[in-house]
């Protein structure tokens, strides 16, 4: 037990610096990036429902003034949108592997 205590402390320390509260500007930037990716996914006709939900959650949190959660949700939306774009591009060829021949 004795040795693991300092280890836990060390871990806590390294997360501390970037935990300052996100402000409105951070949220706006994150949301803009998420929305761009989401538009691209829709353009590829491969939007995910969870992306849309994350975007709505981000907006809702931002309206409520909770920019921490809003920024996190916007980043989540961006990640999901990017994944759906990646899926659409890879599937352009990958589908043939499953085709019954």
């Amino acid at each position, binding site marked *: 037990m004795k040795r693991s205590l300092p280890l836990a402390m060390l871990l806590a320390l390294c997360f501390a610096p970037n935990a300052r509260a996100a402000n409105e500007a951070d949220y706006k930037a994150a949301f803009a990036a998420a929305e761009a990716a989401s538009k691209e996914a829709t353009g590829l006709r*491969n939007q*995910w*429902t969870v992306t849309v939900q994350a975007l709505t959650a981000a907006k809702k949190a931002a309206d409520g003034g909770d920019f921490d959660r809003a920024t996190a949700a916007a*980043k989540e939306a961006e*990640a999901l949108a990017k994944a759906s774009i990646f899926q659409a591009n890879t*599937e352009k060829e990958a589908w043939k592997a*499953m085709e*019954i021949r």
Partner: protein
Amino acid sequence: MKTRTSLLLGSLSAALVAFALTSPRVVAADKVDPVADAKAFQNFFFQKFPDVKHEDFVNGPYSMNADLKRQWQEKEEFPPYEFALDAGKEMFSTPFKNGKTYADCFPNGGIGIRQNYPYFDEKDGKVVTLELALNRCREANGEPPYSYVKDEMASLTAYMAFTSRGKPMDIKIPDDPRALEAFENGKRYFYTRRGQLNFSCASCHVQSPGERIRAEILAPALGILNAMPIYRSEWSGMGTTSRRFVTCNSQTRAVPLEPQSDEYRDVEYYLSYVANGLPISGPGARP
């Protein structure tokens, strides 16, 4: 947060590379050959389920599970789509405001023709499904179109399907490059993975028909549209082909496209063509 996205992308690409390496199949020259595709498609299911009678595939999950089939046969004695059928019959004979009826829009008065839909309209250069043709008929006669996912459309297609019961599916692909392209586009849609769950239609209906996803038994893809439209206990109501496509998409967490958009019409064209020869069994009752 940044690490999270790259992690996600990394895992996806790694999975793909592994996947590509394992599939030894050489990608055949990409000449679209519907006849060969249909033969291969049907043989795949006939070999995978040797003791299922060929025409029984159109009964979807009921061809895969005896206990479920018994529940279905009990329901078929007095099926829940009875009301939609009667409503459809009545709507079919009720004239529009201009005195015309649906019979005037369709060959043979709309009776016993469902097995030829969808067809490729060479003038339009696109696939025309039964639901689309019905709404076009309404609009041509000054009537507002019906929603593709609601009861009125389901009642109309239920009646038209009923008049074709037992007739083998008979979809034609004219020798027109655009028709071949539509067929190929439908095939691509069928095998393309989508949604956060990363499923394609084939993931469920080709790789694991007969198996359960929770309470439901997965239907084989062969003849999966022959029973449309269906009364689903799940919806406790009628469902058109459009409604089925839209709900399947949202189950894999993919945002559905507009009903009757090109992809849906093409995948209906593909699935109907590869089921040529199997009987129409609509309207159907499903879990």
